[in-house]
């Protein structure tokens, strides 16, 4: 299972980034915490538009199966859903705290976008 968490830093102890498309980094790990690496998302952080869409594309290209983030907009949601990626929202605190909350069933997958879209 490949899981990605939107983060403000590059370790498991970094605070999560509640934004998906404009998250600075993603902490990616497989097999219960082995094989942790980061994805630098600054290209989308600085995109003039379509940040959520292209971040979702990147997650699909990386073979991510679960996203843990704060909120998700309608366009990113559409792409992630088409790519068959599970979207868990409501992340809080550090990446570790959010990961544990998900594992313990305190954070759930969303069935729709949690934010309104931005025109640009």
């Amino acid at each position: 299972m490949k899981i990605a968490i939107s983060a403000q830093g590059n370790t498991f102890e970094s605070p999560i980034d509640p934004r998906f498309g404009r998250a600075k980094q993603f902490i990616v790990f497989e097999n219960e915490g082995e094989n942790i690496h980061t994805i630098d998302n600054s290209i989308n952080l600085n995109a003039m538009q379509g940040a959520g869409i292209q971040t979702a594309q990147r997650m699909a290209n990386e073979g991510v199966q679960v996203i843990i983030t704060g909120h998700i907009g309608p366009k990113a949601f559409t792409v992630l859903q088409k790519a068959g990626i599970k979207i868990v929202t409501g992340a809080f605190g550090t990446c570790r705290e959010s990961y544990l909350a998900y594992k313990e069933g305190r954070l759930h997958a969303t069935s729709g976008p949690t934010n309104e879209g931005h025109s640009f």
Partner: protein
Amino acid sequence: MLTIAIASGKGGTGKTTVAVNLAMVFNKSTVLADCDVEEPNVHLFLRPEWKFEEPVTIPVPEFDKNLCTGQARCREACRFNAIVVLGDSPLLFPELCHSCGACTRACPEQAITEIPRLIGKLNQGQSRSIDVIMGTLNIGEARSSPIIQQVRARASSFDSEICLIDAPPGTTCPVVESVRDVDYVVLVTEPTPFGYHDLTLAIDMCKQMNLKFGVVLNRSHDGNEKKILTFLEKQKVPILAQIPFSFDIATIVSNGELLTEANPEYHKLFSTLAKNIELEVHS
């Protein structure tokens, strides 16, 4: 054709009031283009008889899934982030597309054709002796520039001596599109802190675009206009007219009537404005 844009910076300063009344006083054949396509309002004052309506579309890519091999060159070419490719199935977010055509050119399989997407409409009509063109952007659409271009192209196709453009407020892309290459810009402002601040932005825009411009000070009354007038004098910006702050004017405008028709005194005010503009254009 002499093309004059009426712009402002701050919204609600009286662009449309100036545009519709100015259209009445040139004594020359005049076409008035309402380029404030997100909220066109020239028609509220001129009540034109509409002659026809046409759709405004922009080209967007359509993917032939039988030809696509999923190389995602279209996605890489799109600088507007409007395309994703999952497996060998491209997906377009049309509201982000700027119709640049880069994806169509980049596709190695010729799997992309461009199809029209409706974003709004253009109306053409007449009021008194004035030809009126109006653009309307559909609700929820983000890009108004293509409609403004179509409205301006239509207005330019007339044989009129004067073309007036009622621009949207602000200094962003739609305004730039509305004032690009005009012969003169009339900046309408009001003596408030916001009016003053946004006027300075509009002046910067005109200077960067190498456009000739002058200012109409609306809602001008004793004392409060001094700061703006001093600023304009210092900057050597021509003051074309001052419209007084009056209950009478507010009432006429609120009733959707033309100031030039309601009172000969106001007709004179706008005639003087027209003369001042023509003098400035040729100076």
